């Protein structure tokens, strides 16, 4: 349970983080921090359900819907991304319900749940590729520039040329995901989900509505992931079917969380930091000549983590301390 000293530590960490843009870090390190927080937000959203035995390999679908909806609506109809995001959220919620309801109703769990959601991630990726006249297919898509001459920020087009603005937007979302995590932990929902993940029939017998409980956390997690997709598209100003949807990104989310540790609040974020850090260290040490070396080491580490440290780096470290 969180006690006073851990709250104090977290507060100090947060204060340091808030000041990050003013420490003269330079543009690239700031970009890395923004990416770490953004991935941290997405991973935390996934882990909200993943840690309770609902391992989805389909969150790439929600990320892709978020990213592509805002860019397409903006480019085709000039819909401002903030309004586009609402529509993307609505689509995501409907899709999560349409897939989630039968899954939970018919007790599709474990392997089967993972594989059904994986099929969903692929469907979204393939639809994006197949509608290439609209989406640009595998080449990806860039949102039309929405900044008028001389302006550095536009809320209407949700484009900001200054990284510091992005930093605070992403930081806010990341803090929001941690707040949601804690709220879930303090609620009855958490206890109900814990009971379900241990024994569904027993949970149902004491009056827990299994289907409804699982749907709640799934919709929450999917909607937040969709929001992550919106931010990703607007920040990078580029979307590509392989980086925001499909199996690749879905697995990457799961593994990032596992590397960090999915049972502690900061574990998913730690996984994102670890992943980006690994990429950067390898880039500095050996440069970009050898394609795939970072993924090679990453894959080997994942196998190692799952076999030796199923609770992740941060999870194992915290456990050892106590």
């Amino acid at each position, binding site marked *: 349970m969180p006690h006073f000293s851990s709250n104090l530590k977290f507060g100090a960490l947060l204060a340091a983080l808030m000041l990050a843009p003013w420490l003269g870090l330079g543009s690239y390190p700031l970009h890395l921090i923004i990416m770490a927080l953004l991935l941290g937000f997405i991973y935390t959203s996934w882990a909200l359900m993943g840690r309770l035995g609902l*391992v989805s390999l389909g969150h790439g679908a929600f990320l892709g819907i978020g990213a592509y909806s805002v860019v397409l609506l903006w480019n085709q109809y000039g819909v401002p991304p903030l309004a586009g995001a609402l529509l993307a959220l609505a689509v995501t919620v409907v899709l999560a319900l349409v897939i989630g309801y039968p899954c939970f109703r018919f007790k599709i769990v474990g392997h089967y749940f993972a594989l059904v959601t*994986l099929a969903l991630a692929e*469907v979204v990726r393939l639809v994006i590729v197949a509608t290439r006249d609209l989406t640009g297919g595998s080449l990806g898509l860039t949102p039309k520039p929405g900044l008028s001459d001389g302006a550095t920020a536009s809320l209407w087009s949700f484009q900001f040329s200054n990284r510091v603005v992005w930093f605070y937007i992403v930081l806010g979302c990341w803090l929001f995901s941690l707040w949601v995590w804690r709220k879930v932990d303090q609620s009855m929902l958490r206890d109900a989900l814990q009971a379900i993940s241990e024994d569904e029939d027993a949970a149902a017998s004491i009056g827990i509505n299994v289907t409804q409980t699982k749907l709640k956390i799934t919709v929450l997690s999917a909607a937040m992931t969709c929001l992550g997709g919106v931010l990703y598209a607007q920040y990078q100003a580029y979307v590509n079917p392989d980086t925001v949807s499909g199996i690749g990104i879905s697995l990457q989310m799961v593994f990032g969380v596992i590397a960090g540790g999915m049972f502690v609040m900061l574990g998913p974020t730690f996984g994102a930091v670890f992943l980006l850090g690994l990429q950067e260290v390898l880039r500095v040490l050996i440069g970009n000549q050898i394609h795939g070396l*970072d993924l090679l080491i990453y894959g080997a580490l994942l196998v190692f983590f799952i076999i030796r440290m199923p609770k992740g780096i941060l999870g194992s470290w915290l456990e050892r301390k106590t």
Partner: protein
Amino acid sequence: MEFFDIFLLEAVLNGLLLGGLLALLSLGLNLIFGVIDVVWISYAELMMVGMYAIYWSHTSLGLPLALCLLFGILGVAALGAAMHWFIIRPVLSAEPINQLLVTGGVLFFLQALATVIFGIDFKNIGVRLPSLMVGDISLSMARLIAFGVAMVAIAATYLFLNRTFAGTAIRAISQDRSIMPLMGVNPERIYLLTSAMGGALAGLAACLLVLQYDIHPAIGLSFGPITFLVCVMGGLGNLLGGFVAAFIFAQLISVGGYVYAIEWGYVLAFVFFIAMMFIRPEGILFRRR
């Protein structure tokens, strides 16, 4: 609109040929699941390794193709056994979902390994077989051979499982994991044997695919998802169900791809899969007892 369309017939026939290949791939994966109760997400990556092994031994070592194909099969069989020994064995008693995810780590690893060694360019072994013309329908020779070999291999696997002692032991252990050690069967040996067999089947699939497709590090991703969806739709571990599901899937992809565009064929297949999971979650051939 004509009632009889020659190109539609061609799509159906090509779907049939693709079905044979999918049936072979899903057989290996299903066998491993049925016996060891683990889904190898990286199964198609083993096949990719086999394709590179054949490519490398043929172009760099200059060995005759037949020898290279044999090398591919044996190599992947050894890789399958190694995969069980070093990756699966340590997590046999862990959460099922961890077993699934650890093979996902292997997926990244093998894909990246191929990229580091061979780069991301498309490679091929430089063998192109002619097409066979039957009336107005053109059928690729490589696909016909692949279909024939896949059918023979499936029949051979079936006979092995039903007519030999080792095969009987494999079937027995998939029916009751806890009783068989009492009957004097060493499960560890059976697991290794099954993994090597699953590997050999992936190696055989690699032999058939190098004749039709260019090799690149991500080729596993174009066959992997389809392969385990076929297995799940047939009922994980149900060999006959997987066989039937492979042909249904292949027809959806081939005919759907012909009527719309190739990606829509896949979309159709995936959506059909999701729908089937809700209608018959235990697999298409499952009967309630």
